[in-house]
């Protein structure tokens, strides 16, 4: 394991660049017309997939810490969360900017008719306060309520899943995979919570 401040900073830069790769690859494909017959959809789904993946990675760090007893996963929690927000923002930006061409008329026509879009917007709204309060300064300022606030990410994980399930036409394989992952990651937390609170009643 790397040690020292320099080591961690270097590792963080590597993880940061790796996390940026999906974005660079998708933009590169867009520039070179490599996104296939429906490039807007490819960008839209691509960013959406990565938002969900980073949300899963972010949710996995605390359970990894719990299971391994190592503290290092927590060092990456903020970055992973912010990348989830970054990809979710791009996902929404592609929808508003490219799919609806920034047209308010199109927004009014499409969004109210689509429960899954509304669920996606709700998910994004839930992520905004988390991204805004992600700095160390805000963490200190909010104290205990910061922890409570950031439990919203569990809700966002669930609404993101509902968003995915509602847009599928027939084949639920992919959202089921994400549901299994998020279900397991939240399940571990519930198990840990039950064990801790159970101890309170022990003699």
């Amino acid at each position, binding site marked *: 394991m790397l040690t020292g401040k320099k080591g961690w900073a270097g590792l963080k830069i590597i993880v940061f660049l790796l996390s940026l790769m999906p974005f660079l690859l998708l933009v590169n494909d867009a520039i070179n017309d490599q996104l296939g017959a*429906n490039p807007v959809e490819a960008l839209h789904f691509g960013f959406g997939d990565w938002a969900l993946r980073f949300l899963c990675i972010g949710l996995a760090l605390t359970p990894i810490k719990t299971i391994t007893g190592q503290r290092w996963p927590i060092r990456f929690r903020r970055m992973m969360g912010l990348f989830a927000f970054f990809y979710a923002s791009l996902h929404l930006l592609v929808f508003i900017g490219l799919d609806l061409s920034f047209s308010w008329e199109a927004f009014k026509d499409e969004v109210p008719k689509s429960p899954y879009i509304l669920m996606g917007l709700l998910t994004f709204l839930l992520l905004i306060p988390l991204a805004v309060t992600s700095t160390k300064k805000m963490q200190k300022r909010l104290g205990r309520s910061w922890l409570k606030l950031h439990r919203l990410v569990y809700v966002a994980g669930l609404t993101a899943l509902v968003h995915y399930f509602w847009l599928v036409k027939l084949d639920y394989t992919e959202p089921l995979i994400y549901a299994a992952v998020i279900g397991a990651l939240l399940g571990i937390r519930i198990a840990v919570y039950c064990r801790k609170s159970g101890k309170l009643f022990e003699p």
Partner: protein
Amino acid sequence: MLIKTKSNILNSEVTDRAVFESRREFIKAATILSAGVMLPISGHAETGKNIGPYSAKLHVTDREDVTSYTNYYEFSSNKKDSTILARALKTKPWSVEVAGEVEKSGVYNLEDILKDNPVQERIYRFRCVEAWSMVVPWLGFPLGEMLQRFKPTSKAKFVEFTTLYNPEIMIGQRSNGLDWPYVEGLRMDEAMHPLTIMATGMYGDELPNQNGAPLRLIVPWKYGFKSIKAIVKIRFMENMPGTAWHKSAPDEYGFYANVNPEVAHPRWSQSHERVLGSSIFTPKRNTEKFNGYGEEVAALYSDMDLKKYF
């Protein structure tokens, strides 16, 4: 974010009929004015084949886009995977069973069917229920003329079509999802309408497997899922057949499935469509009622509430 696209000369005008209809002048002007202008080959509607009626002068979608983006759940629900998996299908020899309320029922070789039905080119818009669209130069023949030869009885009010069932090759049929085999149907007057064709080819060539080889239906004023692929059975019926997507989600997919921007799918709007092959900055196209074929087909539904019978 600065993004350029390859051929922005005509791609930006994909949906602009007025511009495209005057393309001869445009091409002439472009040729004279700038020798350096590259025109995409797909810009030409005619391919010099036997061109049938209704072949509206539309900007044909690139063949590459039409063959790499297909909904073929018999193979996969992923549009790219299905194009690759469909290669495994053998389409020769092929026969079609004709059954039900018909005098000349029996099993017909596709080759014999083709002898009686010379193909012509039809350039049609194709609008998917998922709100994307394309323009394809199909090769085919009018379904009505073919059906008449089998002499349907007076009891025949509907025609039902069935796709091949072969889960060994069509691996999507191994999982539940739709009630396999895929079934679609038309009212007799819809089937007899001269716009409705049986397609055996496209872009002047045979149908690629992923696009429904060797024989598929094309009903240009209806959502794409009506245009059933790899047909092995045609049955004439007195009652409305139960069709695949309708059975799977009756509130989302109707039997008629006429393209209609005024009737939204329960989960998304149908008022606009993404034109395949257009650049990422091209806005969506306004969907036309009956996919732009209202003049020809609206009379078929004159006494029907299209919101109820969607």
